[in-house]
């Protein structure tokens, strides 16, 4: 097949190395390798070049790079696309990145008869793994679990309002997860108003002081708290009062504070769903266990698909035919030469070997329009000098 993948990833290359190649120029990178076709995939945790060519220069990423060829390269791409080689097993973001890398290469004319079917198949395999296993279910981090919980309560997060109490980094990571799922109306309240304003600017949100909490609480469908307090800021009375003002509409409260920012009694209301940091971490660990459990099935699908791909892809078929043809030519050539050499006296073993090698090289290049001049000349010279 002549496919090779060369790359660096979180498995072996430290971040300092990955940083150097974080934003590669695909055209330059592929030109350096001398490949006929090439796709460059760049994600947070990896930079890889999928290449097709005869004499590839694969030393583009230095010592920590890995190189895989043919079947191994196909299997690697299928695993990467399905998120099975990711830092968080089963993540689906990488599939979008694979699609985008392939599209970029396709638009630039850097893909052909080998990489087009390969990448299309990889995308299909990834979708199959996601559909037939539960490898991508659940949230794999506290922020993503928080956002998933909101999706189990509300139909459309884009229409919901998020209130964040505190401008700490954990809370803001959670805001990012909600933002990623389409939530737009965000308000950040903090004791230090300047920090609230600064955080709000990052997310195009509104900001305010913490003492606005009673006024803002009834407006919020989702509340994230991440304050450093000795006592809970939201007790049951405060939450019930807010719930009454929002006509009983449900409210999701994510309490990321330690000590807790929300009194456990607030959860007793029918329409309040309260999750503290322990609840979220339990859900994350359950998700990871489930994903580990599904990994075997996912790898089985990948393995079957690799087998199917290798046995059915058009370029593989041509390669196999060429190989078979070459073996047949060599065997015919050997028997004919043996018969010829037996009739010619005075040929040294070296001359016989040179003739065999030069003819063999000619057959090897039989598929190209112009056989290498060196081989042709060598054959002619040998025939002139050795045959009577």
């Amino acid at each position, binding site marked *: 097949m002549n496919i090779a993948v060369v790359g660096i990833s979180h498995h072996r290359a430290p971040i300092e190395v990955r940083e150097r190649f974080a934003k590669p120029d695909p055209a330059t990178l592929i030109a350096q390798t001398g490949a006929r076709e090439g796709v460059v995939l760049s994600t947070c945790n990896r930079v890889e070049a999928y290449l097709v060519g005869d004499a590839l220069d694969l030393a583009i990423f230095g010592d920590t790079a890995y190189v895989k060829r043919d079947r191994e390269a196909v299997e690697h791409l299928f695993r990467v696309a399905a998120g099975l080689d990711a830092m968080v097993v089963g993540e689906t973001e990488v599939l979008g990145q694979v699609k985008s890398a392939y599209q970029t290469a396709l638009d630039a004319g850097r893909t052909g008869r080998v990489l087009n079917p390969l990448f299309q198949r990889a995308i299909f395999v990834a979708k199959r793994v996601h559909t037939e296993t539960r490898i991508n279910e659940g949230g794999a981090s506290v922020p993503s679990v928080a956002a998933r919980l909101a999706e189990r309560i509300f*139909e459309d997060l884009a229409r919901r309002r998020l209130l964040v109490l505190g401008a700490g980094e954990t809370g803001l990571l959670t805001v990012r997860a909600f933002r990623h799922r389409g939530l737009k109306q965000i308000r950040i309240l903090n004791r230090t108003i300047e920090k609230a304003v600064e955080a709000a600017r990052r997310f195009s949100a509104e900001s305010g002081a913490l003492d606005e909490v009673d006024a803002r609480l009834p407006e919020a469908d989702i509340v994230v708290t991440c304050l450093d307090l000795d006592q809970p800021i939201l007790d049951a009375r405060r939450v019930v009062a807010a719930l009454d003002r929002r006509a009983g509409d*449900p409210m999701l409260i994510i309490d990321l504070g330690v000590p807790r920012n929300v009194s456990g009694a607030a959860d007793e209301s*029918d329409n309040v769903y309260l999750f503290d940091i322990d*609840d979220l971490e339990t859900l994350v660990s359950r998700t990871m266990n489930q994903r580990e459990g599904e990994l075997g099935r996912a790898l089985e699908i990948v393995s079957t698909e690799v087998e199917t791909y290798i046995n059915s892809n058009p370029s593989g078929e041509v390669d196999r035919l060429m190989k078979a043809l070459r073996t047949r030519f060599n065997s015919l050539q050997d028997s004919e030469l043996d018969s010829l050499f037996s009739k010619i006296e005075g040929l040294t073993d070296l001359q016989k070997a040179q003739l065999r090698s030069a003819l063999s090289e000619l057959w090897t290049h039989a598929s190209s329009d112009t056989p290498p001049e060196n081989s042709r000349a060598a054959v002619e010279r040998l025939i002139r000098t050795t045959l009577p």
Partner: protein
Amino acid sequence: MIENILLISGLAFYALAAVVGARPALSRGAAAGGIVAHVALLAHWGAQRLYVPGTNLYEAFVLLTTVLMGLCLLVDVARRMPILTRITAPVALTFLIVATVAGPRSTPHPTLDPRAFPAGVHVMLTLGSYALFMVAFVAGGLYIAAQRSLKGHEIASNLPPLETALKLNRAAVAIGFLLLTAGIVTGYLYARARMPGPEWRLDAKVLLATATWTAYGIVLLMAVVPRLRGRREVVASMASIVLVMLTLLATLGWSGFHRFV
């Protein structure tokens, strides 16, 4: 012959939809097959007998389950809720098996003239409302299950979001209530014109239908009272299904002129 083929193929399709519930596309296809078979059966009866097929237990349950499955499949496809078809298919199957085993099939109602315009409309409206109340019951069950899972700090990804289940429950109750109101009005108009004397007002089915109408009216009111919205409202809507079932049972024995033959 054709009746039996259509009935049995519908039953087989519903059974298949229940069995392959874990594979949504197949389950939806099977449910659609069952609906098509039973719509054809209802059309066949309608053309043959020239009345709305719903005046004996057998016809009524075929009509009821066809509307129920049709509604659930529609919502499933529109809102991606495969669990709805998965849950409803066995329910429909049970109703149909009961009707097949229990009821005579072809005798029209002895007192009700099924060819009279308001009588046919009355049957359609009331059975339509019962189907919607059953949808509300299923949606309510999904809401309670989803809420239990969230309150237990779990994520149940096979259940719809709470908001979706609640909206479906409310919509089914509201539309069912409107249909039942219209059904009661058409029934009243028919009875006033055709029934001698006021005795029909004390008929078991009339009384139970009035109680059902009142119960679902209260459920609708609960949806606008902040402290009763959500779980309590849903539980009330689910409990009211008992009245619907009693109203259906009344047609088997307690009722006078509503009785199925």
